């Protein structure tokens, strides 16, 4: 009975949301978006500060943002402050998890000895995954992906090692340092931009030709830091979850 009532309520609500959204002719229908009506228009032509008519891959150079990946240009340049906030969200939630679960005992939930295949396999795969992760965040301005997926990959690699190698578990605290280091450096880069050019998180490095590896100014640097930070934070969250309650 309760379920039916809730379904009816949500049905009515859904109906109103639908009609509220779609009865508005200004709400562009799915797929009919005209980018000229949106701020994204300028992101495509990279002409927020300088007017550009057309940006060409492999030819245009010294643009306001050198990223070939538009999403990356938004994430790290145009709306870089959001990204800083995003990193902070991850930082604070890993900290929260640590505060909540970190006081628990430091042992794995399931005591086991990793078998041979896991140990050898992990050691073999670890560099590959890590390398892929690093590749992804270094090429974040050229290909899909970036600091967050790359960081997650590194975290998964580390997790694998964590499961496989008991000695490795003792060294986990160094990730806290990496996290702190990466975060602080990110902010410091921003402040450096503020000091040199007057804008926080300004792209103070020259941008090269679009499509080159070293073409995107601070983007790769930021993405490396974000990747490290995300990797260490996710690792921290997972290791905290693996701890068990100690009876006091």
């Amino acid at each position, binding site marked *: 009975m309760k379920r039916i009532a809730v379904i009816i*309520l949500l049905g009515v*609500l859904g109906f109103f*949301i639908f009609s509220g959204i779609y009865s508005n002719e200004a709400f562009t229908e799915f797929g009919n978006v005209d980018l000229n009506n949106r701020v994204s228009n300028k992101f495509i032509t990279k002409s927020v500060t300088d007017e550009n008519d057309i940006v060409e891959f492999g030819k245009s150079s010294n643009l306001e943002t050198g990223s070939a990946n538009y999403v990356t240009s938004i994430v790290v340049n145009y709306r870089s402050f959001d990204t800083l906030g995003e990193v902070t969200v991850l930082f604070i939630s890993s900290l929260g998890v640590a505060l909540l679960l970190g006081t628990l005992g430091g042992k794995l939930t399931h005591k086991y000895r990793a078998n041979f295949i896991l140990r050898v396999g992990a050691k073999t795969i670890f560099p590959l995954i890590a390398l892929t992760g690093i590749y992804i965040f270094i090429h974040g301005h050229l290909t899909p992906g970036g600091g967050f997926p790359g960081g997650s990959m590194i975290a998964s690699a580390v997790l694998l090692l964590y499961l496989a190698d008991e000695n490795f578990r003792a060294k986990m605290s160094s990730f806290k340092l990496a996290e702190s280091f990466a975060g602080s450096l990110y902010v410091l880069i921003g402040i450096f931009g503020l000091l040199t050019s007057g804008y926080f998180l300004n792209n103070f490095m020259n941008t090269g030709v679009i499509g080159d590896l070293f073409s995107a100014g601070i983007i790769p640097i930021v993405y490396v830091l974000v990747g490290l930070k995300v990797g260490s934070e996710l690792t921290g969250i997972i290791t905290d979850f693996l701890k068990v309650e100690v009876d006091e």
Partner: protein
Amino acid sequence: MDFNALILFMVFSAVLSYLVSKSNIKLGAYSTILFSLISLIILFLGRNNIGNEFSLLYMNFRVTAIGWYFSLIMILIYSMTAFFNPYWMEKILYPSSYNFLYLFSLAATVGLFFAADLITLFIFWEVVVWSSTFIVPLGKSRKAAVVYFTISSIGSMATLFAIMFVYSKSGTFDINEAFKFLASEPLTATFVFFTFITAGLTKIGIFPFHIWLPLAHGNAPHTFSPVLSGGLVKMGAFIAYLSVGILPAYKAFSTSMTIMGIPFQIYLLMVLGAISIVVGTLMAIKQDDVKKLIAYSSVANGGYILIGILMMDQVTFAGSLMHIFNHAIASAAAFLTIAAIAHRTKTTKISELGGMIHKMPVSYVVYLISIISLAGIPPMGGFVSKWLIVQGLASKGLIFIAFAAFFGSIGSFLYVFRPLAGLFLGQLAPKYENIKPSTLVMKIPMVILASMSVFFGIFPKYLLETIGEIQTSIGIDPIMINGDTITTINGVLNTNKVAAIFGFGFVISLMIFLVLPKSRKVGLMDTYTSAEFIYTPELYHYANSFYAPFERLYKNHPSVEKFLGKFAVKTEELGILVNSLFFSHKPSVTVLWVMAIATLIFLGGVDI
């Protein structure tokens, strides 16, 4: 001395008194006497300040004749009551704060009476309320303070609404200017009149706002009850005056329906005043606690005062202003005598006392005089003022109101007699055999106040001349007084003759009393029934259930207290409902609310 200096002095004297009390409690208490007396003298001698205007910070003041008159009463009551403060310092939980709040509330009342704009008026009004609110719970009841504050804020919030409303229409806060536009807008004027006067009604204790008086007056510290009853209640009269005197009520209501020649708006309030007289009288008769008894008599007297002020004419208004003074000194004196008794006996219940005349004769005389004055019996001041009020009412043909006034006078005989007989006369309970009479310092204010009651009863002209000047200053005909003869439309009163007659009667009865053989005194324990010894002789004291047969007549009366109590309970239940409806540890409850509300809002706001 300028009065801005007076107000500053009064504020600083409060702070100073606090500091003095911190070092020496007794000294601090004496300082309240000193400071309030100095203020009284400055105010009394500074009558030539009337008409002056001055400002402090953002507050503006204007000294008016009526403001001066009210201030004088207020400071007089405060300074007289202050004589009792030294004896209560050890008994009160926060003596220094008490002294501070005592003088601070006094300063605020004076500021209130001199206010030139409505914001200043409201500021001081609220300051008086909160500063006195913190004194009340030092006495016997915590609940009293809450009821007092709540009822007061019902009034003050209504008044604030009126003030803001008037400001939004007229664009000024100046008391004399702000209300002027109402003269031509009867409907708005009706609204403003009722909201603005509410604060006054709550303060005077007009039905149905009267319930705080017995609670707060009856339970406040004994040294503060006189101030509450004699002093602070009169602030309400001031607001009532503003609502008919400054707010052009009669002019605005000139086109509205009239009852007995009075606009129905004003008549309605007069009826409330009449109800207060009846309720106050009936309830006073029932009371066993003297303080509550006097508090209810204040309700009744508040009714007289309100009716008189609402008339705004030559006779009744003068009577009312005079009654404000008479009631102030008489009820303050009555409360002071009770305080003096409670100082020795620790109780104020009539049934627990008796025979106090043997121990405290001065208190007895003072109490006798004041309560006679309260009841409006000649030759005291209260008689003159009540006579004026009744005369005024009768001349206008306001039968119902006048009937209530008569009823109040007759009923007052009953409640006057109860404490007189039960508390002062009769047998003395054995446990009070060894109590001492009240101290000299306590006797000073009691005697002063009592003699004032007598003096102004016999020579009312000294008071009525001042009142006449006030009447002239606000544009109504002054009361006609020639020597000690007061002339009204259908009656003449020569107070000297009245006093002489009563004095003659008093002498005769004194002679009879002296000539007749003395009655034998019987101790309270000197009693037995059927050879059985009585262990609880108090129950056989005649003060116990004094008016039992009479009270039975209205035992199951409806009561505002019960109604408001129910209201409070309902509010609390509503709060619990709010709590259980909206606040849970389950997210689903709130999410459901969010979705339901969203659906509702979209239902009304989305074009489909």
